[in-house]
């Protein structure tokens, strides 16, 4: 009579698969038994030799039976009758193996070598597998997908015929039989199965090992399936593991409760193999997509974090190499980003080097000991009280607009600079109002290279501005000491100037009076630009741009400024060109004995190219200075941003 457990397999692939499933455990039995035979002397049990030899002989018999029933040359499919007969004929050698090895295992004492005992258990496990012929039962519709790779049809390994890396599944059920049935079915599908006999144990396992799926019985003593599910779903670390509930088919109330609590699906008992496979495959597939999505998002976050790292200067090139290997758009983004970050880093390193040079020059100028401000006239304001809030400490400068003091702000307990304004600059309400407007405008520029303006005020008829106090040296004083700056120092200075001009121009503020006296350098080589927008007031006070009324020298003024035309950002860029020219060559582009002849030269003559005066200047840098000095602003470098860009290309 046909054993109803056996369904015939179809075709050659089915035969090869069956042969493979039977031979694999037998091969393991043979191998391990041979090893144990070699070991019996060492473990002090020569008496086991006979039993092991018998087991080995039984295993070889089993191989002969398998080879004869299923020769590799066999083309015909195997029938259910044949399968049943094969099962019966294998039973005898299998029993011999089991009996012998169980005897040996019983005689194993705690003194016996652990490895020996573990090998005995491996043989028993293999013999068990050989006995599970029901595992060969094949639903016809699944034969194809479970068939081994057709490459050689001789797969020897229990796993080679199964989907690789199919997943780790935790089966949680208080009934051993249920766990066993489910576990074996799943193992046959190629899954790795771990068992837990109760909810508590399941939670411990989930905390300790990664799982792709949990099959969870609803009805369990103590911590039941619903509660266990709650714990899994409440823990952010385990929330994403899909859980399929196992329950009686008629227990819909519990099923609904569990699905609401986050269960992925349910499986009714008794298990239908087809349904089992379908639901598990679907759940795992969904999890794989979710994992992929999660990984993708994590990698996106890493790229974002890398962007922050670039900003804070902490990015190391190659940090994204893992993501850069991706073949998709994210990988491309990471590659491009990494490359750009590398360039930024290299550029920063160069800038640092340039600032270092600049700092050395500042230090050298200080060391020369001639930096003290020449005896200034304290007549305007005596040292001491200035209003309720400030206390004058020293005069630190005097310019066309007034006197600059170092003062102590008692209210905020900090050092500030106070600049008083010549009375004619603030002689009427209109002018004061305009002054206030300009100060408000200048205060909009918040940049590390700009001296911050705090306040505009009046005390005893004296109008003044309070500003950030910068302990430093003006470029004017520095050049007086050193005549020229090194090329790298000039680049460090100009870059900072271009950066802060870009921000100011963006805010609609034109400086109008850039010159070495307004450029402060602190001991670290940090540039601070003073008097943003203030120059306009000086113009306003006279209402003209007559030469005689100009503050200071026209050396840094552009032709359009000298001609009283409208002013824009490019006017500042001309002044930057003059400053650069002076730093690099130690000379102004135009020099004359009188302001009038100077203006004539600025308007009509071409400056000598810097490189002619100093052959060390890179031609590209010399050209750039000349472009800034173009008579017509349309021919100048168009913006501070463009200037920064050009500078970065030079070095």
């Amino acid at each position, binding site marked *: 009579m046909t054993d109803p457990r056996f369904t015939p397999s179809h075709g050659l692939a089915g035969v090869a698969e069956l042969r493979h499933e039977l*031979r694999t455990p037998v091969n*393991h039995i043979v191998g*391990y038994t041979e090893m144990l035979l070699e070991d019996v002397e060492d473990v002090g049990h020569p008496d086991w030799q006979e039993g092991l030899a018998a087991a080995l002989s039984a295993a070889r018999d089993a191989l002969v039976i398998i080879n004869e029933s299923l020769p590799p040359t066999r083309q015909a499919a195997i029938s259910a009758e044949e399968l049943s007969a094969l099962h019966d004929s294998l039973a005898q050698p299998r029993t011999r193996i089991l009996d012998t090895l169980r005897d040996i295992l019983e005689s194993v004492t705690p003194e016996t070598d652990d490895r020996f005992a573990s090998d005995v258990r491996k043989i028993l496990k293999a013999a068990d597998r050989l006995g599970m012929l029901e595992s060969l039962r094949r639903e016809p519709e699944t034969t194809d997908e479970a068939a081994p*790779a057709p490459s050689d049809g*001789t797969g*020897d*390994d229990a*796993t080679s015929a199964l989907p690789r890396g199919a997943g780790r599944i935790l089966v949680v059920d208080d009934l051993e039989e249920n766990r066993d049935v489910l576990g074996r079915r799943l193992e046959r599908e190629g899954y790795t199965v771990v068992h837990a006999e109760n909810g508590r144990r399941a939670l411990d396992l989930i905390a300790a090992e990664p799982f792709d799926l949990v099959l969870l019985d609803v009805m369990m003593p103590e911590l039941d399936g619903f509660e266990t599910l709650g714990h899994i779903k409440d823990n952010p670390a385990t929330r994403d593991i899909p859980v399929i509930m196992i329950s009686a088919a008629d227990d819909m109330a519990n099923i609904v409760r569990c699905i609401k609590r986050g269960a992925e699906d349910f499986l009714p008992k008794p298990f239908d193999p087809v349904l089992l496979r379908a639901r598990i495959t679907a759940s795992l597939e969904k999890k794989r997509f979710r994992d992929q999505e999660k990984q993708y998002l994590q990698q996106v976050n890493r790229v974002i974090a890398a962007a922050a790292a670039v900003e804070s200067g902490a990015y190391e090139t190659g940090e994204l190499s893992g993501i850069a290997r991706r073949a998709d758009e994210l990988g491309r983004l990471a590659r491009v980003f990494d490359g750009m970050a590398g360039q930024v880093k290299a550029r920063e390193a160069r800038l640092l080097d340039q600032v270092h040079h600049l700092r050395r020059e500042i230090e050298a100028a200080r060391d020369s000991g001639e930096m003290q401000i020449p005896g200034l006239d304290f007549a305007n304001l005596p040292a001491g009280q200035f209003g309720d809030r400030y206390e004058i400490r020293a005069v630190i400068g005097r310019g066309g607009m007034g006197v600059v003091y170092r003062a102590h702000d008692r209210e905020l307990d900090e050092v500030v600079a106070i600049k008083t304004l010549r009375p004619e600059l603030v002689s009427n309400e209109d002018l004061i109002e305009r002054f206030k407007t300009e100060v408000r405008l200048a205060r909009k520029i918040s940049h590390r290279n700009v001296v911050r303006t705090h306040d505009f005020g009046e005390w005893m008829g004296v109008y003044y501005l309070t500003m950030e106090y910068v302990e430093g040296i003006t470029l004017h004083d520095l050049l007086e000491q050193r005549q020229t700056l090194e090329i790298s120092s000039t680049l460090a200075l100009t870059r900072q100037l271009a950066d802060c001009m870009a921000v100011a121009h963006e805010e609609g503020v034109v400086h109008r009076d850039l010159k070495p006296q307004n450029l402060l350098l602190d001991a670290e080589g940090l540039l601070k630009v003073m008097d943003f927008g203030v120059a306009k007031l000086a113009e306003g006070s006279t209402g003209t741009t007559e030469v005689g009324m100009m503050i200071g020298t026209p050396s840094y003024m552009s032709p359009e400024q000298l001609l009283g035309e409208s002013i824009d950002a490019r006017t500042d860029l001309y002044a930057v060109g003059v400053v650069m020219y002076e730093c690099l060559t130690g000379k102004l582009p135009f020099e004359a004995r009188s302001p009038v002849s100077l203006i004539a030269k600025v308007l009509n003559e071409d400056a000598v190219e810097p490189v002619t005066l100093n052959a060390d200047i890179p031609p590209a840098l010399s050209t750039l200075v000349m472009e800034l000095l173009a008579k017509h602003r349309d021919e100048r470098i168009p913006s501070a941003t463009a200037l920064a860009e050009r500078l970065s290309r030079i070095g």
Partner: protein
Amino acid sequence: MPTILLVEDNEMNRDMLSRRLQRRGYEVAIAVDGREGVEMARAGGYDLILMDMSLPGLDGWDATRRLRADPDRITTPIIALTAHAMAGDRERALEAGCDDYDTKPIELPRLLSKIEALLASAE
């Protein structure tokens, strides 16, 4: 002692064979699939390779072909291990570039004699 690279995906087979070879004084390095086997063989340092033919992904046949076609010409002797003597398997193995061939279950004395013969001829 000679070092043998064992390319085998089945854990029990790896465990058995590597332990048995080590007991006989061989150093055994393990690769768990064809791709790893090719990488390790390319890196060098092995006197002989035992290559299981049914491996996931890159199987033993392809791994062997790849090694033999390598521009650096990996000439390390390779013994193919197959589950069963299919007609023509031996020819196939030699054609793929293997130097010898053995079937599972492994009969250790037989395999050892093949290993020793190949190592001796390589010297």
